[in-house]
């Protein structure tokens, strides 16, 4: 057994760590705190109130935000569903179909979107859509989201898939199950935590996306991030802090859920 390196013995490590944490979380905390500010100022804190949350839901811009939220949710659900289905098929092909031509190439191809700078993907997608004459709107956003959500859905599903030994499906086939039955009755239920985790991750990635959406959305169609950006351009009002806080909380909830479902596998697998 190797002794684990104790980082506390490195001088300045603690300070550096704290600095990183501070830079990472301080802005978020400021946004959250000021979203409960009663005044219109974004620099001076008056007193605690839910004024700006009320403004988000019922104020002047409420209609705009409501429409953007609706767009975001429908696109996120659609993109997460389709990309999860594709990712599930891909992970079964990668881990069960044995050797096939181009298998070696498939994994980097699947995870490429994780490494390509998002702005490059955004520009490329935009050029692609205009080249094939695809009118910008809901559909372009949806298609773009499906594509970049696939690797995020793929990772937890493939991880889960890796932990399921193929002997279970063999046992099912030995007990007279057709290939479809052994998928439906054995593999799918065992894979489900990974699928849920992948879906939640894809959902939140789609919900939070700004760069690609902003490029391919076309005039008039807004998602929540682009709507927030649009509102912020006209000056930061505390209602943006309130809506950002809501989006942040949603993200935290979904990412935590995704993480929990992804973890179920390691607890269930005792052998």
């Amino acid at each position, binding site marked *: 057994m190797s002794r684990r390196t104790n980082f506390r013995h490195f001088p300045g490590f603690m300070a550096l760590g704290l600095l990183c944490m501070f830079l990472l979380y301080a802005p978020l905390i400021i946004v959250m705190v000021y979203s409960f500010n009663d005044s219109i100022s974004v620099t001076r804190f008056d007193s605690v109130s839910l004024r700006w949350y009320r403004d988000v839901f019922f104020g002047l811009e409420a209609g705009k935000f409501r429409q953007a939220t609706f767009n975001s949710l429908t696109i996120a659900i659609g993109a997460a569903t389709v990309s999860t289905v594709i990712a599930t098929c891909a992970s079964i092909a990668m881990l069960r179909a044995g050797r096939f031509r181009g298998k070696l190439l498939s994994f980097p191809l699947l995870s490429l979107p994780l490494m390509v700078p998002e702005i490059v993907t955004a520009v490329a997608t935009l050029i692609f859509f205009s080249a094939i004459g695809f009118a910008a709107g809901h559909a372009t956003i949806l298609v773009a989201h499906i594509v970049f959500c696939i690797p995020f859905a793929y990772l937890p599903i493939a991880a889960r898939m890796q932990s399921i030994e193929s002997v279970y499906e063999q046992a099912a086939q030995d*007990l007279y199950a057709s290939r479809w039955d052994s998928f439906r009755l054995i593999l799918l239920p*065992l894979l489900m935590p990974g699928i849920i985790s992948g879906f939640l991750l894809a959902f939140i990635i789609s919900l939070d996306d700004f760069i690609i959406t902003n490029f391919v959305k076309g005039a008039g169609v807004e998602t929540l991030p682009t709507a927030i950006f649009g509102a912020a351009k006209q000056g930061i009002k505390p209602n943006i802090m309130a809506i950002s806080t809501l989006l942040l909380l949603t993200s935290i909830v979904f990412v935590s859920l995704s993480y929990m479902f992804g973890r179920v596998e390691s607890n269930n697998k005792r052998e």
Partner: protein
Amino acid sequence: MTPSAHTAVGIVGVTKRYGDYVALRDLSLEISDNEFFTLLGPSGCGKTTLLRVIAGFEEISAGSIFLYGEDIGALPPNKRHVNTVFQQYALFPHMTVLENVLFGLRRLGVAEDNARKQGFEALELVQMSGLQDRLPAQLSGGQQQRVALARALAPRPKVLLLDEPLSALDLKLRQAVRLELKQIQHETGITFVFVTHDQEEALTISDRIAVMNEGVLQQVGESREIYESPSNSFVASFIGETNLLPVRDLRVDGARATCLLPGGVQFSFPAEGGASAGEGLLSIRPERLSLTSPQEGLLNGEVVDHIYLGTDVHVVIAVAGTLSLTARVQNDGAASIPDLGARVGVMLEAGAVRLLRN
């Protein structure tokens, strides 16, 4: 050359290759109806591969496979009326014990009441009634093994394949379950094909044993036959322990044979029938050698080692320096076991020596 309908499993000239590697080489074998048949061999000899070939998980490179006279070589696993008890049990973790046991029956389309009846019967057979609502993770290893057996028995397959089902159990439990398995085979009348690398397990449990090595079938026969009349040196040394002596100038003359042992020692022993001459390999089981006082034995030597086995002791005797023989002596107190360095004579009963032609 189609095996008859009374042959449960007929394997005819089966070869299985993985790329360049030959896992099964031109293997032919007939397993009879209602037989407890064991595949025995060292690790990597192809036992699991043969079982998977019968179950339908591996495509064969050449040859054919018959199940009660029907050629099943081209059928997928779910179309073969054969069930497997996997070495890792492979119980479906998200299903209860009962759901696991009913899985095969439901896939076969057996009506639910009948399925449940057969399922409970199978659970009773393996003494697991009462635990039907547990999940596999809530069972001990031994209990999981029983459920795996019940699950494979419930659809009443024509042949049951068992891949080292006892290897994960401790010795005491293994011995108990071994007897139970034998009894279940007897009660159900299902043909069992049992894989093990434990020769003692094979000898106690089987009607017949097939010994394999490196994908090649070495010998098929009843326990007694395999042990007492091994057909080659591999079988002789793999099943039990034996002294293998290469000999020259072998001459059989009626009930006696003479030969030259390594080191030029002249050796004369009681032979049974089968005249042959020239070179060969003698196999002598340690328990068939007995010790007497020096000069009275057929061979004489010096005790160089003791290997303590509990009820018995293996006494290693050096004969004429180059040759070493192991004799098994019952451990009935120190008196009967010669000290290290003592000179002893070695006696043989008639029939103790088996001549192997290689």
